[in-house]
């Protein structure tokens, strides 16, 4: 699963490279343009480090928060096969969080500090997880269509410039491809099932379509900031390009199942080769990302509670000679 790192379009761009050594910066940029990976001990601009920490951290948070809406269906999954597969899938997501926190730690922020920023609401996670999974079919739609979006984003980011993040993503993408198969199979089973099952999956799809359209984020403003992040291979594709790629790959598959999407304007434009759609409600996106979604408070409360309940365990693991060690990634 995935976190679409949200880059604030209003952030000031003028200070991005201020104060950086021009020679080192040129060398750094030359390495990236040659396709070399940047490793933890290499020189890097402050802004590169900052953006990567933010992005990887958001991604890691999305994995553990994303485990919650799906995790609630583990105990209710219908039948052994689904139960076992869903458990394995959510376990993978938590494992992804572990990999990603380690990758972010190589840039100088501890896992503890990141989790602290998550539970105090300082850092973000993917907006989709602020929506509830009402029924079993919602968990199936998440496993197929949210993971599908995640794969598009992660495959792009895996070609980025920071070595530890790319390596984590390569591994994550392999596992995600199994999630996608599981999710697709679960949705196909419902969509080709009884009238009750078909209605359940259609309702879930209708509920999830707006968050799915929000998934890749609003159109990127062409700013100096995004241009530099693309040059540094921190941001690998524009939000609109990823959304188009997604629609191109998945809308036909959804329609093939006889399901409908709640957007009368959704169609492939023969002239442009691109998908036309109704612009999703970006005001709602902003509202939700800033904390006012249906589940924001609940998700953070659950996470805070887990941290609180686990504190004595973590304390018990510390010994007098416990030292902080940056993970190898």
């Amino acid at each position, binding site marked *: 699963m995935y976190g679409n790192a949200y880059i604030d379009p209003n952030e000031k761009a003028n200070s991005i490279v201020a104060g950086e050594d021009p020679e080192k910066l040129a060398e750094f940029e030359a390495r990236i343009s040659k396709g070399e990976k940047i490793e933890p001990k290499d020189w890097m601009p402050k802004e590169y480090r900052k953006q990567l920490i933010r992005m990887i951290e958001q991604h890691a948070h999305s994995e553990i928060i994303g*485990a919650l809406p799906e995790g609630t269906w583990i105990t209710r999954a219908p039948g052994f096969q689904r139960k076992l597969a869903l458990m394995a899938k959510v376990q993978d997501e938590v494992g992804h969080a572990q990999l990603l926190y380690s990758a972010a730690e190589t840039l100088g922020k501890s896992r503890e500090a990141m989790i602290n920023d998550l539970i105090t609401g300082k850092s973000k996670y993917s907006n989709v997880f602020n929506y509830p999974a009402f029924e079993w079919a919602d968990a199936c739609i998440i496993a197929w269509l949210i993971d599908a979006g995640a794969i598009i984003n992660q495959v792009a980011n895996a070609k980025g410039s920071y070595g530890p993040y790319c390596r984590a993503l390569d591994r994550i993408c392999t596992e995600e491809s199994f999630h996608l198969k599981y999710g697709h199979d679960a949705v196909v089973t419902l969509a080709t*099932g009884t009238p009750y099952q078909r209605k359940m999956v259609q309702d879930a799809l209708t509920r999830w379509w707006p968050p799915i359209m929000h998934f890749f984020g609003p159109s990127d403003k062409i700013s100096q900031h995004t241009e530099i992040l693309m040059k540094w291979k921190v941001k690998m594709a524009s939000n609109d390009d990823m959304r188009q790629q997604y629609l191109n790959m998945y809308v036909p598959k959804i329609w093939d199942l006889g399901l409908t999407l709640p957007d009368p304007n959704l169609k492939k434009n023969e002239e442009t080769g691109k998908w036309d759609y109704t612009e999703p409600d970006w005001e709602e996106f902003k509202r939700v990302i800033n904390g006012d979604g249906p589940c924001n408070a609940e998700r953070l409360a659950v996470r805070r509670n887990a941290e609180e*309940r686990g504190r004595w*365990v973590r304390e018990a693991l510390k010994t007098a000679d416990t030292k902080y060690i940056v993970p190898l990634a």
Partner: protein
Amino acid sequence: MNTPAIKELLYKMADDLLIIGHRHSEWTGLGPILEEDISFSSMAQDKIGQSQALFQLLHQLGEPDADTNAFTRNANQFYNAQFAELPNEEYDFSTVRHFLYDHADQLRFEMLAHSSYEPLAKLARKVKGELKYHVFHANTWMVKLAQGTEESKARMQTALSNAWNYALGMFEESKFEKELIAAKIFEGEAALKTKWIQAITPFIEKAGLKLPPEKEWNPVYGGRKNFHTEHLDPLVKEMGEVFRVEPASQW
């Protein structure tokens, strides 16, 4: 072949694994550290997979298919020990239960690897390999937490004291006990309990914990005869919530 005796044996094992697997899975997303979240999920998958394999053996003996059997019975039709159904509470109780249960489970499957009932013996030989890791995990965490801080030590001792009589309830004997032993299907609960106490004692000592004095041992029986605590009914209803809407459908 004494089919009713074998069925009873398979039911209690399948239900123990299903219910404890369900409890372990409730830690998903909520563990004290990510690594433990992953561990409990991994063990839960093994338990539920083993449970499914036992339900498949039951199906071969004429019982309903595994899904129907596991997901449509009511709480008063379950054969698990009450120990398995108790809520997770905090990580202390969950770890203690995991330790006490997995030692018993490993020994049970080791015994059954020599069972005269070949389908079960075959399964047991496979399962005991998986259980080795569960027991290793349990031993490590029992000792680590019991030797951590004053708080963790006190928590682990309280959890062990609270769990003990329920854990003894795992060894509630079957009305077929003598037949099972005579037919060399299973060596019996009493023999298992003796081995279990020998197995857990060194770790409890290493952890610096104490078992309740033997005169206070008072096993909580009933689970094997379908008597359960108030905690099982909501668990079973939750587990079957989706499946029961249309039990005949493919899900």
